[in-house]
């Protein structure tokens, strides 16, 4: 089960295979079973009919001979002749005449009914006294059942092998009585079993392996079969069908025959004859058509399964391969490697996932940077917050000490005063730095009001301590440029930029301040200086906190600017030509009053 959970291919294949196998299996099973059942019923019906038919034919054959013999035995001619034989002796002419008459009648019957020989037995001694075959006369049959039973009534013997005849036969006997009911003799005839053999050998039109046969109580085969043409009386049959019939049952079923083969067979117990009649056919032959069907279904199923599996593999490869690549990519990114690459061809759902993931990764990496920056900032903020506070105290102490010294030490010389002033100036620089640090950490959400950018800018210029050596050029439009902003924060930001520009120019140069509106509903404000400029590589980095290429001063200024402008929904960037100067460009969204149109300049 773990495999199915882990592998899409396994699931897909399993699904496809089940989809193919289960319906095929069900259909095949149903088709096979119903086909087999109908064949079975048909064959059973046929075999049973054949068996019943043959049973009837056997009975009627026996009955026929019984009737013929009985008819002769009860005929007055035979009665008289037999009486003669018992009255006279062999030398008397009456005897001879009667004898001749009997022989003639017997010969006729023998020829007609295929019973040979037909003979008369002496009622006491059991000798054959007249026979259609002269050679039999004088022979002794006292012990035979057909004699002892034949004295009482019509008797049909079992089928047995006759030594005298030299072949299997069946004897039918019947009493010959006089008009008074006295027993005169026993008339007997040996039945020719040819008709019986032919009857059993007759093919029933079912197939090569179908045949019928008779078996006696010792499991001995009585009639020849197609498969044992000389098997009669020489072969023992111990199949299940024979066993059931010999137990007295009649029916149809599936069983194992004497060869150990599965067969369909009808079996009947012939009570009168004490014989078992079996009609059977090999199951392999009977069910051949439905077995062929089953083989075909299996083969088809095999082919379909192979095809389905192959297509399943191909299809899943299309899904799995890109997914694997994607997994690998995401894993690498997850470990922090934002340089990982992925290329997925196509425009399907997976390609779409991949490209979205790429975008997401891009955003992730940006966020990562911002997070790092703000983490740095936060740490810094915390740090600087506490450091600043800590620093303020000693600075305050120094400041007040300097004040005290200055006021108390009136007689100090110039040099000492200069130093004191240096100390004071140093303290105020430190304090300024601390202030700007604190400003960085204290940056609140901007309180947005409707402002004129031009006014704010002018304000900021005025508030910044721009030395006289720096020429300021203003390029403002006539109308208002209205923005939604925090006055204080903007001023602070502009202140920082101006201070930076002144420092970059080393206190000498031109600062050009331009305000204009852009076509895309933004206000643009730029501060261009003529300082040393910024290297191309650093154009973005200048806005990072703590970044500074200057020897003195900590680079907080521009990062504060960036923070402030971005909080206003604007953007800031730097342009520069190293050696010629730098240009800080701020963009802010114009004030958009829902009821009024924007005022765009130029």
């Amino acid at each position, binding site marked *: 089960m773990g495999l199915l959970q882990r592998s899409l291919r396994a699931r897909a294949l399993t699904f496809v295979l089940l989809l193919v196998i289960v319906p095929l299996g069900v259909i095949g099973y149903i088709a096979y079973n119903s086909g087999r059942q109908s064949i079975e019923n048909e064959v059973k019906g046929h075999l049973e009919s054949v068996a019943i038919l043959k049973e009837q034919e056997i009975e009627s054959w026996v009955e026929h001979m019984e009737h013929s013999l009985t008819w002769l035995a009860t005929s007055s001619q035979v009665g008289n002749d037999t009486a003669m034989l018992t009255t006279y002796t062999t030398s008397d002419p009456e005897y001879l005449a009667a004898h001749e008459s009997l022989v003639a009648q017997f010969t006729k019957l023998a020829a007609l009914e295929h019973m040979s020989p037909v003979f008369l037995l002496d009622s006491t001694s059991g000798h054959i006294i007249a026979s259609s075959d002269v050679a039999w006369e*004088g022979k002794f049959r006292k012990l035979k059942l057909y004699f002892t039973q034949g004295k009482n009534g019509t008797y049909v013997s079992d*089928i*047995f092998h006759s030594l005298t005849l030299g072949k*299997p036969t069946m004897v039918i006997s019947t009493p010959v009585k006089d008009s008074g009911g006295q027993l005169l003799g026993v008339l007997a005839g040996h039945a020719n079993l040819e008709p019986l053999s032919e009857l059993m050998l007759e093919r029933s039109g079912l197939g090569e392996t179908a045949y019928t046969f008779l078996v*006696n109580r010792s499991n001995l085969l009585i009639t020849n079969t197609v498969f044992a043409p000389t098997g009669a009386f*020489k*072969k023992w049959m111990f199949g299940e069908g024979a066993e059931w019939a010999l137990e007295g049952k009649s029916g149809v079923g599936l069983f194992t025959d004497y060869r150990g083969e599965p067969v369909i067979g009808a079996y009947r117990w012939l009570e009168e004859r004490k014989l078992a009649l079996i009609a059977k056919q090999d199951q392999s032959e009977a069910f051949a058509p439905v077995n062929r069907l089953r083989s075909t279904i299996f083969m088809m199923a095999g082919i379909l399964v192979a095809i389905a599996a192959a297509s399943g593999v191909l299809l899943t490869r299309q899904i799995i391969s890109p997914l694997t690549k994607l997994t690998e990519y995401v894993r690498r990114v997850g470990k922090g490697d934002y340089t990982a690459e992925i290329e997925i061809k196509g425009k399907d759902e997976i390609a779409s996932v991949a490209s979205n993931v790429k975008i997401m990764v891009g955003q992730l990496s940006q966020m990562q940077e911002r997070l790092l920056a703000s983490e740095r900032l936060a740490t810094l903020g915390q740090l600087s917050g506490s450091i600043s506070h800590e620093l303020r105290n000693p600075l305050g102490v120094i400041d007040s000490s300097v004040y005290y010294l200055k006021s108390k030490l009136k007689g100090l010389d110039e040099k000492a005063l200069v130093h004191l002033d240096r100390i004071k100036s140093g303290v105020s620089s430190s304090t300024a730095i601390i202030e700007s640090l604190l400003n960085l950490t204290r940056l609140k959400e901007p309180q947005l009001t409707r402002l004129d950018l031009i006014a704010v800018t002018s304000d900021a210029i005025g508030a910044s301590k721009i030395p006289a050596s720096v020429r300021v050029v203003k390029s403002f439009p006539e109308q208002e440029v209205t923005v939604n902003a925090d006055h204080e924060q903007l001023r602070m930001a502009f202140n920082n930029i101006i201070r930076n520009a002144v420092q970059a120019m080393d206190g000498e140069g031109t600062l050009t301040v331009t305000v204009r509106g852009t076509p895309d509903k933004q206000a643009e404000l730029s501060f261009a200086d003529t300082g040393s400029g910024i290297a191309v590589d650093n154009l973005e980095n200048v806005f990072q906190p703590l970044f500074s290429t200057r020897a003195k001063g900590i680079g907080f200024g521009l990062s504060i600017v960036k923070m402030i402008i971005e909080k206003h929904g604007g953007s800031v960037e730097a342009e520069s030509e190293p050696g010629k100067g730098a240009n800080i460009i701020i963009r802010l969204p114009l004030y958009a009053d829902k009821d009024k149109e924007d005022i765009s300049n130029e």
Partner: protein
Amino acid sequence: MKKAISIVVAVAIILVTGMVAGCVPQEGKEPPDQVTVRLKWLHQAQFAGMYAASEKGFYEQENLEVTLVPYTYEEQPIDMVIEGKSEFGIAGGNLIIQARADGLPVTAIGVIYQKNPLCCYSLKESGITKPQDFVGKTIGLKPGENTQSYHVMLEELGLDRNQMNEVQIGYGVDELIGGITDVSTGFSVNEPHRVIEAGHDVNVMLFADYGVDVYADTLFTSEEIINSAPELVERFLRATIRGWQYAIENEEEIVDITLEYVTDSTRSHEEYMLEQSIPLIHTGTSPIGWMEKEKWQYGQDILLQTGSIEKEVDIDEVFTMQFLNKIYAGAEQR
């Protein structure tokens, strides 16, 4: 790796030893019982079932080693069994009854020839077709039961022996062909065919047709053996019956096997004999070896009637069904 190899080798050795040990037949259990059987005549297809049982391993499966000893006039089977020189023998049913009447404790355990093939045979041109024709003729008698049965038959038919010229003949058919006898006694499965092979037509008169239908070839043993080693008897009988069933179902093969035992015969003769014997061994109505009390009783009656024996014997001592019943348990219930 080494360990794996040595395990494989060990297993292989065990397997091979096991197979070899298994191939060796179970003789190691107990040595087979040695048994001799005195046949009723010389080696011929008449005893095909015993050859089958020997050659096809049926005796072996019953843990028996069987030696088949052919007949001689001097060493009659019944005498040999009584003297303890043989365990089993084959003799005609009436001889067994007679032996009992003489006080010899032999018992029949099963019958091979349920129908009696004893016969008289004559050349066709002689015109002798029934015993009544024997009057004034020379009759060649084989010693032993042939003679006895012949006498019984004449008695049954009321014929006077003094009206015939009786002479003793040897094992073959030479006397008849040579004209020394007009009629000779023999077995319907044997001698008549030899006459045909010699180029003459023959008339066969079965004793059974004239009232002497007693059991012919009967397997017997001594009472002592029955009492002391009953399962030996059962095993021997079972294997012998299996042999006969096999012989009947596989004639061709059995003729080949028989020819290995026979001296001085032809293939066609043995084929003929086997073919003729089959219907005698089982007529289809009862299993091979089966015996009916009525028939034994009848046999005794005839012997009494003809004076061959003087007093009745207990017929239940003459034969026993105990072994046949065990072997065919349930088969004859139908």
